[in-house]
C-alpha cells in the first residue's frame, strides 16, 4: 500500500515519470492481462483438474478456471509493479534522501477497498452457487442431502432376498442409480442394491445418468475420492454420506482414500470404469449372477452397518463367544491402548 500510494500518483523523490509511469503501467498491465487471461481460459483451462469426466468434475474444472482467470491480472499487476519499480525507481548511487512521505490517500484507499471487497464478495456468491449446483457439486452432503439431481427419485426399498432378482433400475428412468460405497482398512467395496444387492470390488458406472453414492465405513474414517469424477465424500462408520454425480464420458477413473486411515492408507486405491448404458447393464447383470453365492452371505442391505452385531450367528461361533465381526469396534475396556 505504501509503495502504491507513493506511485504513480506520487512517485518517489529522485525518480522521473510520475503519471507517465502510471499510464505505461496501466497499458502494459491491461495488454498482458488480456493475453494471459485468454491463454489461461482457452489453453490451460481445458486441462485443469479434475477434468470433465462427470458433470461435477466439469463444474469444478470451470470453477478453477474462473478463479485462475481472476487471479491472473492480480499476479501480473504485482509482478509488473515489482519489475517496474526495480528497473526505473531504484535509488541512484549516492542518493541518500528519503522517499516522499506517504499520507492518507482517500481516493486510492476507497478504490482499493471497493475493488477487493467486490472481488471477494463476488467470489463468495459464485462459490456458494457453485457448491449447490450441480447437485452438491460432487461433495458428500450427509445422510439427508439437500441438493439432488433434478428429476430423479431415490428408491428406498430393495429386493435383497433373492440375489438373482430382476434389476429394479434401468437407464432412462427417473429412478436414480444407487451405489453403496463401503470403506474398510484398506479397500473399497461397492454394493448395488438395485441389482440384487451384490457387492464387488469393482466400481462400474453408466455414462450420462445421475448416480447416488451412499458412502459409509466399517471401521475408521475414510474418504471416497473418485478423482476424475469430481466426487469426494467422507466415509464415516455408522453414517450414510450421500454424494451425486453424472458421468459424462466413457473411460477409467481412479478411486483413492483421501483420509489418513492407517498404515496402508497410501495403497487404498483402485480404478473404476464408466461404460455405455448397454455395457453397464450387461456388466451389472452378469456380476449379479456370478456373485449370487456371495450375496447370500452378505448382511441385509442397510445404509450403515454395525460390526458389533452379526445378522446371523452360527452355533459354533456363538459357543465360542464370537458374536461380533472381527472383534467389533474398539472396546475401551480392552487392556491394550493404541
Amino acid at each position: 500500500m505504501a509503495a502504491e500510494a507513493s506511485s504513480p500518483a506520487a512517485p518517489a523523490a529522485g525518480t522521473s515519470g510520475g503519471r507517465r509511469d502510471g499510464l505505461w503501467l496501466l497499458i502494459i498491465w491491461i495488454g498482458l492481462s488480456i493475453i494471459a487471461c485468454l491463454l489461461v481460459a482457452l489453453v490451460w483451462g481445458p486441462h485443469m483438474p479434475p477434468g470433465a469426466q462427470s458433470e461435477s468434475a466439469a463444474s469444478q474444472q470451470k470453477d478453477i478456471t474462473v478463479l485462475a482467470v481472476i487471479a491472473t491480472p492480480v499476479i501480473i499487476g504485482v509482478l509488473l509493479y515489482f519489475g517496474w519499480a526495480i528497473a526505473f525507481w531504484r535509488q541512484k548511487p549516492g542518493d541518500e534522501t528519503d522517499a516522499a512521505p506517504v499520507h492518507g490517500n482517500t481516493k486510492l484507499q476507497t478504490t482499493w477497498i471497493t475493488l477487493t471487497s467486490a472481488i471477494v464478495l463476488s467470489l463468495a456468491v459464485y462459490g456458494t452457487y457453485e457448491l449447490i449446483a450441480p447437485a452438491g457439486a460432487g461433495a458428500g452432503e450427509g445422510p439427508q442431502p439437500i441438493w439432488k439431481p433434478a428429476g430423479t427419485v431415490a428408491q428406498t426399498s430393495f429386493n435383497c432376498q433373492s440375489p438373482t432378482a430382476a434389476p429394479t433400475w434401468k437407464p432412462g428412468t427417473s429412478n436414480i442409480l444407487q451405489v453403496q460405497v463401503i470403506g474398510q482398512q484398506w479397500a473399497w467395496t461397492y454394493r448395488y442394491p438395485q441389482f440384487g444387492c451384490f457387492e464387488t470390488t469393482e466400481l462400474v458406472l453408466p455414462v450420462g445418468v445421475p448416480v447416488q453414492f451412499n458412502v459409509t465405513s466399517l471401521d475408521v474414517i475414510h474418504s471416497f475420492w473418485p478423482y476424475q469424477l469430481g466426487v469426494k465424500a467422507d466415509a464415516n462408520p455408522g453414517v450414510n454420506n450421500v454424494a451425486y454425480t453424472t458421468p459424462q464420458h466413457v473411460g477409467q477413473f481412479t478411486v483413492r482414500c483421501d483420509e489418513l486411515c492407517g498404515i496402508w492408507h497410501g495403497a487404498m486405491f483402485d480404478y473404476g470404469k464408466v461404460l455405455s448404458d448397454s455395457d453397464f447393464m450387461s456388466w451389472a447383470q452378469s456380476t449379479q449372477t456370478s456373485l449370487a453365492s456371495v450375496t447370500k452371505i452378505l448382511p441385509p442391505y442397510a445404509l450403515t452397518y454395525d460390526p458389533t452385531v452379526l445378522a446371523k450367528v452360527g452355533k459354533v461361533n456363538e459357543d465360542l463367544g464370537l458374536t461380533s465381526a472381527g472383534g467389533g469396534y474398539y472396546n475401551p475396556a480392552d487392556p491394550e491402548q493404541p
Partner: protein
Amino acid sequence: MSLPARVTTLVIAFLAVVAGGIFFALQYVGAQPPVEDYTSAASNGQVNVTLMTTPETTISDRPDWVSYFIKNPSSGQFVHTTYFKVPANTQVNITILGYDGCTPLRNPIWGHVTGTFTQTGQKNAEDVQIFDGKALSAVTPMSTMDSWADCSVQHTFAIPGLGLNVPVASPPTEKENNALCALGPCVGATADEGNAPHSVVTFSFRTPKNGGTFRWQCFVPCGGGYVDGNGGPMATLGYMMGQMEVQA
C-alpha cells in the same frame, strides 16, 4: 574461538544431527522384516511358497499377537516375516498352514475366493484340508465361506493389486478351536507346540509379467485390543501384512 573454528564446529554439529536423523530413519522408520527369496526356488515356471498363521508369536517381543510366518526356501525353517520375493510370469503355488481359530469377518465379502485357481484347475477357489489333531481330512475345494454362520475363517490372504483374496479356513469345531497351538511358529511335535488342529489351504495364481511390488494384508481385523481391531499386528510390518516383490 576464531571464526573459522566456530564455522567448522557448527558445520560438524549440523552434519552430525543430519547423520543421526538419517540413521534413525533407516534403522527404525525404514526397517522392514527379512525378505524370503523364492526366485531361485522356481522351476518349470512354478514356485511353491509356504506360509503359516499362528495365534501367538512367542518368538517375538509381542508374544500375544497373531502373525504370519514364511518358510525359508533353503532351510525349511519358518521365519517371522511377511515379505517374500517371487519371479515374474510364474505360477505361484501357495500353501498356508492355518493354526489360528475362527473369527467372523467384518465384511463377509472377503469370504469369497477371487483371483486364484486350484491344482484341479477350478477358478476362484482354494483347496482346504483340516487337521483335527489326529488326521488330515480329504481335500475340499471351497469358493465361498460364510464366516458368520460357520466357524470357517481365521484370516485372509489378500493382494488387492492383483484382485486376489483368499479366506484362510480354520478348524471348524469348538473343540478344535479350544485346542490351538500355543506357540509361534507352530512347528513342535506336541499339541501345544504345533501338532494341533489347523487347516492346510492351497491355491495358485500367476505373477504379472512386468514385476513390481504388491502389498498383501489380512482383512480380518485381528488386532484384538486395538482400535477397531486394526492396530497392533494389523498395523505392524511382519505380522498380518506384508509385501510380495515380483522380480521381472
